[in-house]
């Protein structure tokens, strides 16, 4: 029996200015930066959408191989992440194509604004993923593992093809996979989220699970 593809649309999650600053490479702010961010938010805000499509799949973990009913993938990190899970939600989320158009536009005429929009987009898509995961946890009254995306750890980017194949993302929410495995719209995410009845370690900052400690965006304490 196969699950169906669900589509959800969310209201605008609250903005986190601190995150936007972090993504734009600022450790502090002043009136000019603040004005830049506010004008960028004002311009893009009404053009954003908050859409997710997802389906729930059964999972079997054998060693480093995760078997998801319709496809399997070899990844030690993902296998570790999902080993206690009885099923997994695979989802694709996007804030839509309009922000890409604005980034392109300002990339040509005002890169500072393009940078601000880029940071806002990054913050928005993360906020959407957070809202979605919270919603699912509540709806199913269950604990979720931290979400895990293609490219994290040793999870190959090529698993994008399988995700797109079973989620039909382009038709459902307008997310497309390019040959380079980048997605259009650029502010889109695909991820696996394990469902478990067990305990999940208290949420740390997402950067804490990353090995790249010299990253200029690193946000952990």
């Amino acid at each position, binding site marked *: *029996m*196969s*699950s*169906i*593809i*669900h*589509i959800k*649309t969310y209201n605008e999650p609250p903005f986190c200015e601190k995150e936007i600053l972090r993504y*734009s*490479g*600022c*450790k*502090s702010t*002043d*009136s*000019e*930066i603040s*004005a*830049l961010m506010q004008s960028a938010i004002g311009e893009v805000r009404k053009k954003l959408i908050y859409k997710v499509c997802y*389906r729930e799949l059964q999972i079997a973990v054998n060693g480093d191989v995760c078997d998801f*009913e*319709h*496809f399997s993938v070899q990844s030690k990190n993902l296998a570790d992440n999902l080993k206690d899970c009885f099923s997994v939600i695979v989802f694709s989320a996007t804030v839509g*194509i*309009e922000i*890409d*158009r604005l*980034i*392109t*536009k300002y*990339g*040509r*005429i*005002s*890169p*500072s604004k*393009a*940078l*601000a929009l*880029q940071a806002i987009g990054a913050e928005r898509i993360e906020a959407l993923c957070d809202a979605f995961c919270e919603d699912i946890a509540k709806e199913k009254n269950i604990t979720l593992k931290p979400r895990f995306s293609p*490219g994290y750890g040793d999870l190959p*980017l090529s698993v994008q093809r*399988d995700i797109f*194949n*079973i989620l039909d993302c*382009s*038709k459902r929410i*307008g997310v*497309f996979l*390019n*040959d*380079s*495995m*980048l997605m*259009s*719209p*650029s502010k889109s995410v695909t991820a696996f989220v394990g469902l478990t009845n067990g305990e999940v370690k208290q949420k740390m900052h997402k950067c804490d699970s990353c090995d790249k400690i010299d990253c200029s965006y690193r946000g952990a304490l």
Partner: protein
Amino acid sequence: MTFSEFLKKHIVYLDGGMGTLLQASGLKPGEYPERWNITHPEIITKIHKDYFDAGSNVVCTNTFGANTLKFSDGELEEIIRAAIANAKAAREQSTAGQEKFIALDIGPSGKLLKPLGDLDFEDAVSVFAETVKLGVKYGAELIIIETMNDSYETKAALLAAKENSDLPIIVSNAYGEDGKLMTGASPAAMAAMLEGMGADAIGANCSLGPKQLMGVAEELLANASVPVVLKPNAGLPKSVNGETVFDVTAEEFSEDAAAIVERGVRVVGGCCGTTPEYIKALVQKTSGFMPKMIENKNLTVVSSYTHAVSLGTSPVLIGERINPTGKKRFKQALIENDIDYILSEGVNQQEKGVHILDVNVGLPDIDECEMLKNTVCELQAVIDLPLQIDTSNTAAMEAAMRRYNGKAMINSVNGKKESMEAIFPLVKKYGGLVVALTLDEDGIPETADGRVKIAEKILKTAAEYGIDKKDIIFDTLAMTISADTSAATATLEALYRIKTELGCHTSLGISNVSFGLPNRDAVNGTFFALALENGLSAAIMNPYSIDMMKTYYTYKALKGLDENCAEYIRLAESFVTCGTAETTGTKSAAEDFKSELQRAVIKGFKDKAAEITKELLKGVLPLDIVQNEIIPALNIVGKGFENKTVYLPQLLMSAEAAKSAFEMIKSFMSRDGEKSAGKGIFVLATVHGDIHDIGKNIVKLLLENYGFDVVDLGKDVPPEKIVETVVRLHAPVAGLSALMTTTVPSMEETIKQLKISAPWCKTVVGGAVLTQEYADKIGADKYAKDAMEAVRYAEKIIAE
């Protein structure tokens, strides 16, 4: 009876969903349904037969995703052959009595087109062309292009269908809850483009239920002069006990759909979740309905990839500034392939409130075909206004019309036989609203009468090509009154007569009227007012002219075309509040700058920097301003960035302020025919496969600030093109950026080729995924962790 004949006089019933029925028969998630034509022909045939039995006039072959991106050529041919054979077998087996046709079904490619995605427009046309050719070969009787959520891809598919078959074509788009396509097009915009290109019926399918699609259907009915198609879903899918069910029942669906047929939709069926039961109910509910006759709406309209602009009610402004005539700075931009300058002209005019942008990039020494095509594509990546393609070069015209996303305005055709023979076939093929100049082999008639006669001749010839008069807009040619004081009168009289006697729309290039006179704006403004009063529909004009804008908005207010005079009041207020927010920035005690210009650059005040520079240029040499003001300011910010006291957004704001000061200096110097000597050539590109170029644009901005002649090749650039450019210009340094690990190999390939063909050229690489290790591995000369480092490296190389 052929499908075209049947469509003229009947309500056409399409079939319903295929995917949901196949899933119920065991199709696995991720499995390609098209393969079932070969592996499970009996199931596919049974579904088609059930639809014919339910009353469908048309069944769509099970070929939604049958294209060369998913299947090999051999398998694709086998799939399409089998799919059409299955549909034909179903028709033979069905004993139902209605007319029955077989449509080749074409769904989206699954890829997003450039510039938003990575599929090239012409590649998309080729992909669809293969499917179309096979459909024709195996006997499809019509083509249905469906579920397209992007206008550009829709155009590619329709073009492929038109170029490779004579079959009737139905085009149906997937609109979202906001009533628009995923990439932004409204139903009116789609109607303009698709009808212009000759689609036989246009409509909406999928994504929503019939109730939610009602608004889209209404908008299509109001705008289309061809039959409207509707193929809604059975609502939204839900999971009930592990089974997929849709929330609109056959009974509700048929009632809602019948209501839409009553409003005038002529081609109706179902999409996801609908079954033969739904179609049967629909046919029953609508039996006895009289098909509504299709009326010509007589709309004169152009469109962009988001919206349509219609001529008629309120006069339309066409911005004339993207044109090199008489503009030295613009000519320089064209010669240097400085697309950013052209784009800023577009963005600025949009901000001034024009509705359409005229695009003329003709210069004797450039490849106009390439330039016009590229400019149109680049403009459409950043500006959502419809464009007027303005050229006398027919090949350039075709190249641009083909690539244009929407229904363009075409400038121009005239009464000469040669002109009409060149332009009308293009208008017929690609669609467009064509500006017709009232002149012919004998020149421009002096009298209004002569111009009206030419207009009549043009209309008659257009009709022979199948071009309706609604797609012709006449320009009665404004001539300068400094040569002949009766010139304006003749133009205005011809305008009035064409409007009233021929019932056609009109346009004028306003500013010609004042050529050779002082204070031209005053003459232009008044002439514009007179033309409007004589029925002018559109003006090609300078939106920076205050006189012209005053005329436009006061005319609208006086004619009851401006509700509450709101637009006029906004204009009037803009004259009062000229100061911008940034000029009010307060100077704190700690800020001790050498000069106002330095302060403006350091604080990132763009407009202020330009303003001060303009003032300084009255008394200071351009190079002194650069050396003594701008460079020191940039150095302060650059050092601050390197010392981590200034952050990237601040660095960029300063760089933009410096750029606007440089721009002022540049246009001052080009006026005097001077050109500043650059520091050296820097070739810059985002590598093949990568379509995100913000990092590259940041590097470009800073390099330009520091005086480099940046040759920006854009994004997704093949190694060969980078190598060719470096060799041709003998560039000492090339910068490459990549965002993804998957595109680093094309960076490596580029470096490899550069080492062979341009061993003198140093490479500097950067981008999100790059590290020193990566850069070493792929053989780059330098890894730059940020834009300043790239600048410093380039300075070092040039100094050596």
